[in-house]
């Protein structure tokens, strides 16, 4: 039986192992052992959770096969930043990359059932060009539904119009097009251990690993809450304006 400081040391180590890309209980015996202890020992589990809170992390899922799935708190010690994704991005790139993350999530998990599949189910094959095409198709369908209005700055342009302002592909090898940006994003995810990269008939393809499903669950839930709040605010404003008019 370990004393309290040693318990804390191994608990912190478990969290660090969980944050190391591509380390899994299957390829790292220490991680496997610590995870067994996490699953079987309630006291140890509570300690790991407490240390995670101190490190501004949240344990969003756990699996004896795939390990602890961690997400960060906003501005947390280990929170990924824009710079850690890509340095010196322009406004145009930032917005496009941000929205492309959601396009990718919706492409990989086209409905809530796929997002709710068992953790170890891998995604279908993902081709960079297909994701970019999906982005264009969705944005074009949204544009068709909206009347074109005048906007006074690029800040006011709707997300779908912003995306459509970027070329889908660029034969000169530039980086500001949807295919190049999607590839960059997928490669980044693969380095973080959220995607598998593989070759098939000379083509590079990707598959989302269980870790990506957990990340998307977090991302989708949080974003939906925010959108819901925005809608409530809009409705409150609208009702206020109507009440004023009535008065």
């Amino acid at each position, binding site marked *: 039986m370990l004393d309290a400081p040693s318990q804390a040391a191994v608990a912190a180590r478990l969290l660090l192992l969980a*944050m190391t890309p591509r380390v*899994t*209980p*299957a*390829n790292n015996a220490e991680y496997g052992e610590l995870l067994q202890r996490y699953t079987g020992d309630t006291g140890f589990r509570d300690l790991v959770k407490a240390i995670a809170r101190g490190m501004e992390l949240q344990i969003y899922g756990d699996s004896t*096969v*795939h*390990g602890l799935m*961690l*997400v*960060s708190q*906003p501005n*947390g010690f*280990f929170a*990924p*930043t824009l710079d*850690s994704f890509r340095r010196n991005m322009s*406004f145009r790139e*930032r*917005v496009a990359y*941000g*929205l492309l*993350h*959601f396009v990718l999530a*919706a492409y990989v*998990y*086209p409905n*809530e*059932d*796929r997002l*709710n599949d*068992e953790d*170890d189910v*891998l*995604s*279908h094959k993902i081709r960079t060009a297909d994701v970019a095409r999906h982005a264009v198709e*969705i944005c074009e369908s*949204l544009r068709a539904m909206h009347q074109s209005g005048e906007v006074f*700055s*690029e*800040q006011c*342009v*709707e*997300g779908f119009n912003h*995306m459509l302002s970027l070329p889908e592909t660029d034969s000169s090898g530039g980086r500001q097009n949807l295919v190049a940006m999607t590839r960059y994003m997928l490669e*980044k*995810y693969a380095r973080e251990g*959220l995607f*598998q990269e593989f070759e*098939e008939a000379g083509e590079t393809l990707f*598959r989302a690993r*269980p*870790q990506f499903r957990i*990340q998307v669950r977090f991302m*989708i*839930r*949080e*974003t*939906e809450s925010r*959108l819901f709040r925005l809608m409530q605010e809009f409705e409150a404003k609208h009702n206020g304006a109507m009440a004023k008019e009535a008065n």
Partner: protein
Amino acid sequence: MSETSYLRETLNRRAKSLAHLRPIFDMEANKGRYPELPLAKLDLFRFASAVLDVIVTEMGGFHRGATYEQILSALAPQLLQALPNLDATKVDRVTSFLLDQLTNERERDAFRVRYQTSTPEVRLEWALAIFKLVELRDLEGDGQPRYVASAEAINIYLESLGVELEAQQAADEAALQHFIRHGKLDEAALAARTALARTVEYTEHFRKALRMVERSVESLNWVAEVLPKLDQARNHIEERIHAEDDLAAEAERKMSETDQAGREKLVFVKEQLEIAARKHNELLTLVMSSNRIFLDEHARQSFHPVSLAPFPNPQTAVLKPLLQRPAGETDQWLVANWHLLHPPAIEALPDFSQMVTKLWQERRATETVQPIIAPELENIEEPVPSFTTEVKIRVEDALESLPPETRLSDWLNELNDGNNDARHLAVLLAGQWYEGLEDGVVISADGRQLEYSDVYGDDLLISRKPHA
């Protein structure tokens, strides 16, 4: 249940089961759309069954699924039987094609097939069967994906559409017992294999049902609805484990009464039964722990608002509304919430040794390269001689101290005082004399070799003419 309602339920179940066959019929019907693949000469029903056969067999093993390589190696000989000239690349492509069809790669979703079902009010309504046939899973977290068949796919494979699974398992065991007792060992081996596949199906069926329960804990009455079913399942599994033990013992007894070939078949039967018993034991553990899983899930879901459970639709509830927001607003929000998109990470610390060896190297010269000016030939200085005068004197003195007929090795021994230049010069001079360039010296070889660490080759005989 009245006879009419029993018939209605049976027809509903059969209609749904037949809907599960639609993807395989579609695959066969649409094979002309892939002219790059030699599908015209292949019966895709047969090859889809062959794929399912490998997967279901491997699902009974420790790894609980089949790798792509296992499927490819099982399918290749069968494809070559149909198309003997098929090359390895095409075999690979056809295998990929079959798996892509069974996993519904094109739709990136489960299969959704409409079928008609009859309501208790005797009205026909359209319903949607949502199911998967095969899916790819990382079962062991080792990055080695394995294909796993769903309960629906195993049902198709076992040709048992719409049967009650528990009853069929008991029937399979009765058949197996009959074959063993009556010495029909070929049939017994086949029945054991079917019984194992059925056990795998039951496991998948049960896991899926439990998963459905986990998804919607709020909408279910655990005590009234789920616990009795769990009790039934536990009884059923325990019965199967007992039956498998009895059958394995019977197979072992029968071994003493049969010949070598019969014994081999019985060993196979026993192996299948042992694997089935292991599967049932795993399932029993799952059933026993399901109460805890339910309680954990209940606690977890209680903290989420009902409207958010289990997950919103990524496309309609999130992506489309987000794309309609102004870009500036999205930008502000994303800059502050980038942590939603990527997992937490440990910032890489600069590696000091790497900085010293790679990053802090001296700056490369940036001055423009000066043109090389060729000097006048008369101004070129004499090159520095390879050997100093002292070395030359030393070498000559050593040779003089030896008799006129001597060997190179003796000369080198005289120069064995640590001065490598002197030994080097002696070897060069001997080589020069060997070429016949010096009149006063005759050099010959008698096959003996030098034995020094710094010199390798023939030990030469040196004959000097007396000085005039």
